């Protein structure tokens, strides 16, 4: 019982964290806490199998999935907690409180019989007992869950799959396009230079210099450019100036 009274408030707090966390990642972590708490609750209530499954499936698999998706979408986003629908938050709170109160009252009315306990049912071991049920009484449902899982997997693949809207670009296509661009705009058809070629600077965020001394923008990785962490022309010229100054002998630290 002690365990329960220690865990329960923690779980409730963590659950409330779901409501108030600004960052989705924090919410996910709160949820993980609740889930682990629940696993312990299961264990307390003579359900060792579910304890294990809860840890493995929920905390292990599902939560990880959540985190993956969060990362895909952007981990560091914060949600605005300002309510946009008029009265929604108040109404939700009122209904929620009423619901909780009502259900508590209901529980007081419904749960009256004494607890039987699972000693008898778990006599042959909890896992064996569940297995006996799953493969006898609930075998049809079990088979259906199997079908459901497969459907879900296929469904996830279909949903996550991006439909190809144009014909696949082969290397030949790429070459032809490069040559055309070279003919029309004079863009260099060869491989873009890697960062640092002809460089005086070895930062990956600084464009390489072409043989004529101009910077090759493409040499900076896309992700850096999109985040805006690329150094601009000015930066580069500043860096070049700095390099010349160093050449002249100003032994100053460039950082």
């Amino acid at each position, binding site marked *: 019982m002690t365990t329960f009274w220690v865990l329960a408030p923690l779980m409730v707090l963590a659950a409330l964290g779901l409501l108030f966390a600004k960052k989705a990642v924090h919410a996910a972590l709160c949820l993980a806490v609740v889930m682990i708490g629940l696993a312990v609750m299961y264990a307390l209530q003579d359900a060792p199998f579910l304890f294990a499954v809860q840890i493995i499936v929920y905390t292990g698999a599902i939560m990880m999935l959540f985190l993956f998706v969060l990362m895909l979408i952007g981990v560091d986003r914060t949600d605005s907690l300002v309510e946009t629908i008029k009265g929604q938050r108040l*109404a*939700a709170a009122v*209904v929620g409180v*009423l*619901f909780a109160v*009502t*259900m508590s009252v*209901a529980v007081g*009315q419904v749960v009256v019989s004494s607890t039987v306990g699972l000693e008898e049912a778990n006599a042959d071991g909890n896992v064996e007992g569940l297995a006996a049920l799953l493969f006898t009484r609930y075998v049809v449902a079990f088979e259906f869950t199997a079908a459901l899982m497969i459907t879900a997997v296929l469904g996830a693949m279909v949903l996550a799959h991006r439909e190809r809207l144009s014909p696949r670009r082969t290397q030949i296509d790429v070459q032809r396009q490069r040559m055309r661009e070279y003919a029309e705009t004079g863009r260099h058809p060869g491989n873009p230079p890697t960062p640092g070629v002809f460089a005086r600077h070895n930062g990956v965020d600084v464009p390489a210099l072409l043989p004529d001394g101009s910077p090759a923008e493409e040499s900076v990785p896309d992700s850096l450019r999109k985040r805006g962490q690329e150094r601009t022309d000015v930066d580069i010229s500043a860096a070049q100036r700095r390099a010349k100054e160093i050449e002249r002998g100003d032994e100053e630290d460039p950082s």
Partner: protein
Amino acid sequence: MLELSWLLIAIPLAGAALLLLWGQRSDAFGHLIATAASAAAFVLGLVMFVELLGREADDRSVTSTLGTWIETARFHVEFAFTVDQLSSLFVLLITGVGTLIHVYSIGYMAHDERRRRFFAYLNLFVAAMLTLVLAADYLVLFLGWEGVGLASYLLIGFWQHKPSAAAAANKAFIMNRIGDVGMVIAIMTMFATFGTTSIAAVNGAVGDVSATTATALGLLLLLGACGKSAQVPLQAWLLDAMEGPTPVSALIHAATMVTAGVYLVVRSAGIYDASEVARTFVIVVGLVTLLVGAWIGCAKDDIKKVLAGSTMSQIGYMMLAAGLGPAGYAFAIFHLLTHGFFKANMFLGAGSVMHAMDDDVDMRHYGALRRAMPITFATFGLGYLAIIGFPGMSGFFSKDKIIEAALAHNLWIGLGAMIGAAITAFYMTRLMMMTFFGERRWRDRVHPHESPSVMTVPLIVLAALSVLGGALYLGNWIGDWLEPVAGHAEHHELPAPVIVIQLAVVALVAAGVALAVWLFRSDVPDTAPADTDVSILTRAGRHEIYTNEVNGVLAVFPVRYLTRFLVWLDARGIDGLVTGTADRIGEASQGLRATQTGYVRSYALGIFGGALVVVLGLLAVTLG
């Protein structure tokens, strides 16, 4: 032969149907077919009359059934027609005068492009009128009653392009409908009381029922009779009805149809015998109409309207006589017949005059026509003598008998009838003076000429009948003849010897004539004096004693405004309630629409709240 009475109706009906269905191809000879049909019916009627004459007095009522009209468990109506002493006289009047007017119309309507249709309607009228008088059942009688109403409607409005004619036709039909309501309710009462509407059965049994029922029947039938016979208070249509062609006025609105009310009262003798109250009402109606009609006749300048007022007045005499009970029935019919002759004669004569004067009806534009139209003048003059009751003429006998009977009944009623006779003499003399004597007041380009012989021959025949019609009274023939139908007339004590009364009446008539001759001997202005320049009596007479205005206030305006109000109520009130409900629902939906934000979270809140409600409900059920 007497069983073939349905043929009397069938022949003119067939004529009408033929002319209407045959269409324009029969334009050339349609009028001849119609006249022949009418004449054939007259011949048949004459044969039947002769056969009746040859029978025993108690064997003169022959009812023959053509077929069943309505047959249900409780209600049974047959197309049964009775030829008896009363109906055979009417058959002769209708077909006889009818045929003469058909002949006259050949000339009168010669230039009307719709002459065939006119004759079809005339035949239709004859058929309907015969149905009316031959019917052995009140419902069949009602069939004829409405049939003549329809024919009257069609013929008054014959010149449909004239709005006044169409309005007059409508007025006639609708006012008659008011009377018809009385008829219909009377027939329903008969059905509810006796289980039958047979005329003979009802009149035979009416003595057994309560006086209230008999009185109700009598008054209801009287309402119908007032409508059809243009008696006060339903008289207003008759003057307007003069919009119809003059032969129509002669046949329908003088000689036959308008007397149907009198026929109805006499036919329903059993009912009126059973109710003193109903009879009194008939007398009052008759007397009032008699005086009102004469009053109007004095004031009008339109020759046809003078004659129409006179018709009302004369039918008032008949009604008065009919209201006297068995003492007067025979005289009512007697006067009806003689009036049919002389009034038809005079209407046709008026038609002849109008024909000569380019359809001008204003007597103030006539004058001195006796030389221009000698035959018309002569025949009209004989009719005039008959109507004022010149001794020896038919009207003298018939009117005199009514006055005597009225005097025997009640001194004041008799005096009223005598005053009526004096006024009759006055306005008829006024008409004669203004039309045939005095100076010429013809409009320009009017060249009066005598009518063709096809028109004058009927005039001559009718004039002869006007003079000789009194012969029916020889040896009280008509009283004896009608006794099986009308009942035996008790001999009443007169307040004075007959000869005194007759002399008094003649004196009154002479006074009326003299007054008119003196007033209208010359210098009649050719335009009517303005209303403000004439006496209040004349003014009221010109305006038909304001009955149209009274009807307007009592009936027309209430209906008009009720209708407008109801139209408004229907659109705003009843329909408004329905559409208003629909609108409210629409508005409520618009309000509810706001809750459909489209946000998933709103809907989720709804679901959650719903779950809460369900749980609360469950709790309430389990805990309660």
